[in-house]
């Protein structure tokens, strides 16, 4: 997989969650995603950016245009140095929440994208990588 373009954005506060949504939208438009695909990717980005902020205590998202063969997509890699997730399968379950949300953030955003990878080390942070192909 080739990374054609990349940009690293900080997520330190709520205004930056909104900014991540807007920049992800712009990149989806550049990639000529359909309106439904744009909306899915932006919504997944919003859920994960909020997780990074609330559970991870802030972090970054790396936006990447990726190419594999003749397909192109958008990859978003969210990283934080927060407390981490001790039980990932439990955290992925719909309705499971430790915060004030609905517990749809992780499981829900997985359903909105094509590739979803999560790794977490308790005490060291969490990394979530998603891809939506055009």
């Amino acid at each position, binding site marked *: 997989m080739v990374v054609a373009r990349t940009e690293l954005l900080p997520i330190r506060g709520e205004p930056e969650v909104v900014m991540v949504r807007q920049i992800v939208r712009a990149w989806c438009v550049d990639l000529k995603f359909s309106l439904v695909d744009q*909306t*899915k990717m932006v919504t997944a980005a919003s859920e994960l950016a909020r997780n990074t902020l609330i559970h991870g205590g802030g972090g970054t998202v790396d936006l990447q245009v990726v190419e594999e063969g003749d397909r192109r997509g958008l990859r978003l890699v969210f990283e934080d140095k927060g407390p981490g997730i001790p039980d990932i399968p439990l955290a992925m379950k719909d309705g499971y929440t430790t915060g004030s949300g609905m517990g*749809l953030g992780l499981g*829900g955003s997985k359903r909105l994208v094509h590739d979803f990878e999560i790794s977490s080390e308790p005490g060291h942070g969490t990394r979530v990588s998603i891809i939506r192909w055009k």
Partner: protein
Amino acid sequence: MERIPILRMGNFLLVTIQVDMHDRLAMTLQEDLTKKIAETGARGVMIDISALEMVDSFIGRMMSHISSMARILDAKTVVVGMQPAVAITLVELGLSLKGVQTALTVEKGVRYLEQAVTTGGGRRTNGRRPH
């Protein structure tokens, strides 16, 4: 502080969300709206989200909360104008907005509220609920 305006139209309150809301703004709207219902004795609330390009779980939860709080304050809520792409995404996200009444257009929303208010639960007198 940034706020979303709440307009009064007779017995109803109207909110049009035109900005990409951050979470605190959504919370403020929820508080402002419940306060306004209590103050004015409004019987219906219409939330126009036709300008919203995305509804995530936080905004969805806010809409559910507003509906529940309004119901406890004896007012009906209707969410109007959801874009089809937003609806598709919400369902895949796993949010069915149970308990939130929706309508496609503002006209249909007004009609729903008028009907719901005249048929549901009787009229309020002197701002008090009937016993």
